């Protein structure tokens, strides 16, 4: 009887710490998601004007970093991978490195395809596209009269 109560007293703080860790991960995920949303809405606001390309790219880069942070928290805390045996983690982390090549190669490929198309495989200069408008940025003298049915 006494040993049982002793065991309970001993396991309780550990148990509380685990639950606390889970909720802490939840709050971190929530904050990161809100930061992502703030960045997304900032891009939306900036797009109404004429933002510089590198500024938008920088904000998008921040969003990607927040996303990687979220992925890290989900994998290490929720999926308990941080508590697993090191070599088991490596047996999955090393194949995952293929993604570095995968992402780089395909984005470079897509970019190259666009350049080749825009210049007819380098045989002519790329011409700037005609002016295009955002739905929320109606030019003066033009009505936004074609709306959804």
């Amino acid at each position, binding site marked *: 009887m006494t040993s049982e109560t002793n065991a309970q007293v001993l396991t309780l703080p550990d148990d509380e710490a685990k639950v606390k860790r889970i909720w802490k991960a939840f709050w971190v995920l929530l904050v990161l998601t809100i930061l992502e949303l703030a960045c997304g809405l900032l891009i939306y606001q900036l797009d109404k004007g004429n933002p510089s390309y590198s500024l938008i790219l920088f904000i998008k880069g921040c969003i990607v970093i927040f*996303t990687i942070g979220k*992925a890290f928290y*989900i*994998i290490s805390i929720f*999926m308990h991978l941080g508590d697993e045996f090191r070599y088991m983690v490596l047996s999955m982390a090393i194949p995952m490195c293929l993604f570095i090549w995968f992402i780089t190669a395909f984005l470079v490929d897509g970019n190259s395809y666009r350049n080749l198309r825009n210049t007819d495989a380098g045989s002519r200069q790329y011409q700037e596209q005609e002016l295009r408008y*955002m739905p929320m940025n109606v030019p003066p003298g*033009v009505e936004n009269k*074609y709306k959804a049915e």
Partner: protein
Amino acid sequence: METAAVVQSTKSVWSGGKSPFKTSYGKLMMWYFLVSDSFTFGGFIISYAAIRFSSNYWVDHNYVFNEFPGIAGNAPLAFVSLMTFILIFSSVTMVLAVHQGHKMNKAGVEKWLFLTILGGLAFLGCQAWEWTHLITGRHAVLVGDQIQYWGTTMTHNPWGPMVVFNGGLVATPGPVAFGGYFFGITGFHGFHVFSGVVINTVMLIKTRLGHFQERGHYEMVEKAGLYWHFVDLVWVFVFLSFYLI
């Protein structure tokens, strides 16, 4: 004498009966399945990214996904944030169910599993609304020299570049690949959510029947949990690639 002792201990390490990765077979195989599944999703998303990089124009997600049921007017990102919060929250309830399983607390596992299933169903409901809204909502598109009204589908994209026509601003047809990638990838993810809900329901029934209590451990709930967290993890990247950047 010493060498003999070394041989003895080496033999005992190599003679089996031990998990080399200090985990059970089932959990390890679930992890390896998730690794392979992440390559499937990765392949889809990277293909989408490559096509997007190869285009001069892509749709602006802030105008495609800007509606919220019950709110008239423009609400960019609002609905998809709700979906994201639902999925993150259901991930927390799942990890709490696994935690109760470690403590052999049957009632606790039931309670948190039930909430996880509710979260999954809520997410699927949101996705059904979003798809219906996209497919059936018609938008003006300038095709040739006449205005047509298109929904967003695998074959039609009314979110192309805006041009001035008869003194009014109107969209032209956008890249068709958008619909295919959007419905393909969110559909594949939605199917994962659906199967996760089915798996969690089976886990809830088996918990109710006391199968895991009899077995002495809740490892099946843990494996279902790994799958469910993976579904949440994939959504983090779907959210990034379709709604944020």
